[in-house]
């Protein structure tokens, strides 16, 4: 069995009467780059804040590196690196000052490594933070999250607001720095194309619950789209695993999860003249899970 870097069990959280997390369960394998997907406002940041012990859940627990994030908060934060979405730092500090300031919180801060990172990320040390570009700001935040060489890195929509080039640069740095060192990366984003090339595991959060968690490759393999012309007597309502159905003229396009040969044979039997199978990218898979109609249109 794979060892978990992060375990979330039955996490419930509410802002007043508004229930945001409705029982999130998640396992993040050690050493993986874990893509945490969800639309805006589905509870990704809330999950991460709770994971960091910044807010207390109504129920459930989070284990990071074997430590409970609510009872051993400080130790958890010492062991992880975190970068928040659109993070603001003290603008009046210079880069070297803010590195020193953050280093003060970590007994195991690696100054040499931090210097190397600064050079690698092209950060001018005597420049004030408020003078940095958005890309440099993200690079600095990454440096501050990694300077103590954490085992687990949590990135909450780290490329938010970056232009495409800066985003690519940032992701390249993430891959270079983290993937080869066996660091677990928990990467939250709503930009699928950003996650797709780097994540080896994926979880999709929708309306406060995890609706799918799987290895990326496995997900790609198991979710398929079929285009067919249905027989008049074809009954799709009892077909298991339909994510989305779309009628196009006389044809029907069906997106199916956990696709195997048995399902293919069943679908073929419902078609008048064979069918076309289409492989989906992560973007389309995500769309099917999150906004798919689950065959309700067809059954009507």
């Amino acid at each position, binding site marked *: 069995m794979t060892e978990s870097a992060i375990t979330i069990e039955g996490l419930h959280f509410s802002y007043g009467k508004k229930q945001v997390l409705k029982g999130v369960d998640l396992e993040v394998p050690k050493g993986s780059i874990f893509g945490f997907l969800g639309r805006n406002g589905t509870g990704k940041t809330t999950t991460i804040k709770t994971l960091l012990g910044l*807010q207390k859940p109504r129920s459930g627990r989070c284990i990071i590196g074997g430590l409970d994030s609510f009872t051993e908060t*400080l130790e958890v934060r*010492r062991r992880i690196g975190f970068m*928040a979405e659109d993070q603001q730092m*003290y603008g*009046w500090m210079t880069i070297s000052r803010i590195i020193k*300031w953050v280093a003060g*919180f*970590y007994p195991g801060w690696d100054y040499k490594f931090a210097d190397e990172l600064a050079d690698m990320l092209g950060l001018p040390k005597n420049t004030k933070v408020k003078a940095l570009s958005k890309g440099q700001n993200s690079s600095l935040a990454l440096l501050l999250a990694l300077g103590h060489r954490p085992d687990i890195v949590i990135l909450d929509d780290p490329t938010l607001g970056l232009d495409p080039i800066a985003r690519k640069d940032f992701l390249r740095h993430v891959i270079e720095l983290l993937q080869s060192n066996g660091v677990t990366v928990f990467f939250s984003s709503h930009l699928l194309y950003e996650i797709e090339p780097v994540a080896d595991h994926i979880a999709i959060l929708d309306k406060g619950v995890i609706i799918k968690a799987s290895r990326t490759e496995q997900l790609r393999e198991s979710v398929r789209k079929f285009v067919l012309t249905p027989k008049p007597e074809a009954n799709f309502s009892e077909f298991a695993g339909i994510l989305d159905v779309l009628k196009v003229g006389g044809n029907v396009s069906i997106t199916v999860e956990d696709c195997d040969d048995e399902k293919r044979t069943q679908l073929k039997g419902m078609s008048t003249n064979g069918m076309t199978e289409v492989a989906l990218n992560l973007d389309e898979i995500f769309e099917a899970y999150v906004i798919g109609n689950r065959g309700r249109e067809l059954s009507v």
Partner: protein
Amino acid sequence: MRVSGIIHQQICQIKWHLLACLGLIMVLPVEEAVVNLRAGDGFFSDGMTLVAIIFGPLLAGLIACANVQGDLNEKRYIFWRSKPANVKFLITLKFIIGLVASLLIIACPVVFHFVSNIIWNEEGIDKWFFKFYVPLPILIAIMTYSLCFACNVLVRKTARAWLIGMLTGCFLLVLPFMLPLDFKDFVSDVMIWSWGPYLAIMLITPAAAFVFALYAAKHDWHLKTNLKSLLWAGAGLVFILMMLFSSQVANIKVLQEKEIEFDFGQGSLNYAGSRVVYQGDSYIDDDKDGFSLQKIGSGNVRAYPYSNIGTDSAGHRIHYGPSVAGYSEEIYPRHGNRLYKDAGNEIFFFSIHAYYRSEGQPPLHKRFYEKVYLRSYKHTGNNWMPVCELDISDCFTNKISPYFRAAMRLIDNRLIACVNNSYVLVDVTNPGELKLIDKKLDVLQRFRPSKDRKKEFSIPLVPIEEFGLEERIRLSIDLNYNFNYGDNEFYDSSIVDIHDDKLAFFFIDFLDYDDVARFDVIRWDDEKIYCKYSNSRPFTILESVTGAPGRFSPKFVKNGKLYCHNSNTLMVFDIRSNRRIRKLGHFVRMDYDIQDMAVLEDGNILLCVRWDPEFIRDRSNEDKYYLYLLKNPE
């Protein structure tokens, strides 16, 4: 966590605010010093230092907001909170650094004042300034700093946090004026009582605000505010203050005010049956158009015992009435008050006359009370004439008695007259013919709850079998009430309230408790009534301030209300509940001297006041007397 790094960060974060505040606070003292220098007096600051440090609490609030605002921006908050920082320690450190900066702001002009006065002022330093004027702004600054700090943690917007913090500070400082809270237990021993609530507020608020800020920062409690809701909240706060204020002062409506003739005594208002008599010569009648004075008898009546029929060699008015040769006279009730009996077409009053001789020269002279008479007087159309007299001199059981204390009560046709610790019971069915029924010597005793008033205490039950138990209990309390401290004032009223078959009476205690306290009669036997403290209603500073010229004492209890006044303030309390005494009304005339009061049949209050020209330092005017008709507060 590296403390030096955080201290450095904090100093950098507030340095510009600190410098700006220091610049602002030093403007006035430095300017004054320059003016003094130009005038050739030397480069020192004087009164402007005080003006400057009064701004200290406002600037302390600014520092508080600047101190943590940089850390509480939503996106920056996540940045440092996600680091392994001990939030409580971090916030404490930030709080202390900001507090030191705030105190530095006040310290600067004070130090400048101190140094410049030592060096350049020939008169040296003013010790009073440092003893009394400096500590208060410092204490208030600590309070406003803490409040603004806590508000900023909660609201996370500098200007709003400052505004809310300052308003809250003002509210808390005004609150002791408004709320009858009993702070006394824990502050009375260390400060003058009237400052106790302030001291309590100024010590408790910073501590509470700091603890709140710690928890708010740790648990990320914050409020989203907008100007509209803040304005509403501010308006609500002002409304609450106004409601509290109006519940404390000036909520008794004046229905009528009339200047009246005045002859002698103290502007007395006494009951004659259901009517009220002013100064012994006029009935006061009240109707929907207000009150009017109707002369008793046919015409311009001069009241006994002082009359203008003659004066002695020293210019004193000569007594008109029975006297004892060679002896001086003391009369009860005093100051022109009387105990009236309305007998249909005729009106009588009763009084006790004690005669004494003096030995020795004042002030060491000694009085020897030997004779005391109970007399009845009848109104004869144009004068009060003595009609009957009872010699009750044996009530002075100790003839060489240095005091004369008297009390009287009229119950139907029975008059109880007390002299020192003895009493006589007299039949006054025909007031012109006083008939002695009973006499008991040395049976009255004063009572007053002990310092620990929560201890049960007893009052001797007056041994008059003729009245029912309830009336005896009431009589015992009224007659014995503060008996040895001064004249008993309950000859035509009572201090006892009977509600839901429960008997209670009231003390206003300025010596030990500064409140109005209720004592319940809990049981009785053949000899004593046993009483216990029930509850009290503490006075606020506001009441103490307006009540400063004299102590309050209970005037009387009537229809579930306690009336009391001192020289310039009248207060009315609802005393029907045995759980809570509720203040109903407060009436103040700062430059008037309240002489007497009465409650009329229709419930309105009649107040006799004297306007004293001394208040405006105008000796050319004579005293003026007024009658006020006031609406009884509900």
